[in-house]
């Protein structure tokens, strides 16, 4: 009984300590710069090329995080006034839309002072370019005897039996479906802008639906390809190249791919705008950009950085001339106007 009494007293101490701790927690919220990327292999490369050197050089506290491009998360943060992200990696349609809706801080390019160092498309009202990426058709060269040569082959389950990976969303998926249905790359967005075109894309997707395994995170396609869960997949080019570097025989098919820029954007209401500017400046330098691109082959937005890359590396970039043949530039304007409706329809379609 005595022992219980004693433990009882120590329980009281424990309780008091914890309550004091609880009180302290309310007041001590860390004010580190929170940088959100798409994570995975790209996030790892960012850590090596940007985060760690930035922390070392500026002594700024930095919390990295990742997401899968859910623009809505940022929007609800801003609309409810709880902005905990300071810098986000954005795809161009969401950036454009968010900029118009007032979700992002407009960038003061004079203050940044790097406007003339970057390629033209990297300079946006609310965003500074991070890199050029591409969504490609990828497959495991060891497992497929015959190489697929287009999105038509991707849809051909007779010739290439097995599951296919596609990103769970309307974006890119509809473009690929139209190409599989015979629409040339340069006409994809013209066709997609008509209601008949959208119906056509969904009809084409219907054909493949039972064979599709949907991915959400960019790290999934290379993993599934390696594990043999899927025979082909749409994938972010850099992730595939990263798997190639690990000795995997994954192959990228460049014609029919969709390329675009990702941007750094500052959500409106961020409390670390100064540090965010410093970070953007730091990450746009030729040296840091080259360091990033040698980790994962996404194209630098600082042209000087490209010269610093080895010729072999340069060939892996989405911006390499040969890789751009037959490729399609992301239809930013199209997706700004139609993403809401098409994503909704896609979701209803996928749920059935």
């Amino acid at each position, binding site marked *: 009984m005595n022992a219980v009494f004693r433990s009882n007293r120590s329980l009281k101490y424990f309780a008091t300590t914890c309550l004091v701790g609880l009180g302290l927690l309310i007041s001590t919220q860390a004010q580190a710069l929170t940088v959100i990327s798409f994570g995975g292999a790209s996030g790892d490369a960012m850590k090596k090329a940007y985060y760690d050197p930035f922390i070392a050089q500026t002594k700024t506290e930095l919390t990295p995080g990742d997401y899968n491009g*859910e623009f*809505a*998360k940022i*929007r*609800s943060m*801003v*609309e409810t006034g709880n902005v905990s992200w300071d810098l986000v990696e954005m795809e161009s349609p969401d950036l454009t839309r968010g900029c*118009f*809706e*007032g*979700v992002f801080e407009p960038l003061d390019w004079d203050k940044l002072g790097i406007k003339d160092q970057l390629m033209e498309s990297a300079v946006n009202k609310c965003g500074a370019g991070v890199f050029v990426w591409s969504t490609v058709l990828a497959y495991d060269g060891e497992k497929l005897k015959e190489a697929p040569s287009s999105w038509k082959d991707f849809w051909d389950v007779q010739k290439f039996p097995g599951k296919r990976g596609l990103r*769970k969303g309307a974006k890119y998926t509809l473009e690929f479906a139209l190409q599989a249905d015979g629409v040339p790359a340069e006409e994809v967005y013209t066709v997609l802008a008509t209601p008949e075109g959208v119906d056509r894309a969904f009809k084409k997707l219907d054909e493949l639906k039972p064979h599709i*395994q*949907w991915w959400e995170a960019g790290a999934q396609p290379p993993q599934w390809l390696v*594990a*043999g*869960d899927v025979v082909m997949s749409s994938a972010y080019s850099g992730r595939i190249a990263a798997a190639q570097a690990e000795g995997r025989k994954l192959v990228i098919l460049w014609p029919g791919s969709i390329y675009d820029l990702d941007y750094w954007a500052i959500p*409106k209401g961020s409390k670390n705008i100064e540090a965010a500017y410093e970070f953007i400046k730091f990450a746009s330098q030729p040296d840091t950009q080259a360091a990033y691109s040698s980790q994962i082959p996404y194209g630098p937005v600082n042209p000087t950085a490209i010269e610093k890359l080895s010729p072999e590396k340069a060939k892996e970039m989405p911006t390499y001339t040969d890789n751009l043949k037959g490729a399609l530039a992301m239809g930013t304007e199209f997706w700004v*106007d*139609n993403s*809401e*409706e098409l*994503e*909704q329809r896609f*979701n*209803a*379609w*996928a*749920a*059935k």
Partner: protein
Amino acid sequence: MATQTMAPPPTTQTSLKTQLRRAERRRKLNAFLLVAPLALFLLVIFVFPIGSMLWRSVDNSELSQALPQTAQLLSAWDGQQPPSEAFYASLAQELKSALANGNIGSLGRRLTYEDPTLRTLVTQTIRKLPDTPETTWQQTFSTLNPRWAELSTWQALKKAAPTTTDRYLLASLDLERNAQGEITAVAPEKQVYIDVFLRTLAIAGAVTLICLIMGFPLAYLLATLPTGTSNLLMIFVLLPFWTSLLVRTAAWIVLLQSGGMVNTSLMGLGFISQPLELVFNRVGVLIAMVHILLPFMVLPLYSVMKGISPHYQRAAISLGAHPFKAFWQVYAPQTLAGVGAGTILVFIMALGYYITPALLGGPSDQMVSYYVAYYTNTTNNWGMAAALGSLLLIITLVLYMLYQRLVNQQTPNRR
């Protein structure tokens, strides 16, 4: 007791009674005061947040917040007369202030639900809208886009003007209001949610049934074995029960994927030549959910069975009943309360599952919770999230009340 024989003066008796009553009342108050902090805590952090979320299922304030004056005009408008200059003037002024206030995003989203092209119309109009009209605002709008001269555009706006709406609740039942305001079914290609609800019920039902089939014999075995053995075997039930849900989900992916242990061993044993598809589909979801919820079936069944005396069954057998008959007619009926509690508990918990289907299922295996999260996180359609959530909550609450009744009928403490 002693009052009868001693018969004390009536005054003392009443004061004793009031004293007793007062003490009793104080005890009740005391008891209530002890419960009050928790009740208050739950009201603030749990009940109120859920309640205010449910409110969003009928909330329709986007337009009236972004364009207050226009909303008033629209509400007063009969929907037939061509809108007057006042409408255009008010819209011109308020669109600009909405853009400045950051209200344009939520307005655009709200308009998309009425007509997907409305958002583009509004945003494109704002970009080109001059500060002052050349002639009239009506003229200016109509030159920017002829759709502003059409009645249907304004009728759509009018629909978004009231501060409450039933559209989300209707939509979560695959219903909508047509142009005449009557409730009709939505076009077949847009029908989703009835399917999703049926699917949710089907998955929860299948999981419950499998849990019962697997859990009943196990609980019976544990309840009838000697204590030492049954305590040892109980660890097999309790350890998974205490193990993190995410750990178990990860383990199931490792086990079930096409190059995973289950497939490789089946292929190694020569049962199959092609790997089975066990994950990212319904099979994977069911296996993992049964695994997670099975202890919730076994434990209540076990505690009920532990309390059933084996004598009745033995008596039935010694009176000549076949052992199977003795089991079904004598033993099984006594377990009914436990079966009821276990099945409802498992069913309720299964209804709200989100993480397991999200990690182990494909798009056609997602349950209602997934769509609540989807609408909150991916499209900011909070009305839909709240409406689907409300329906799910109602189903859960009804079942929960049933469960409370069943449990209260049993002994007060089950554990």
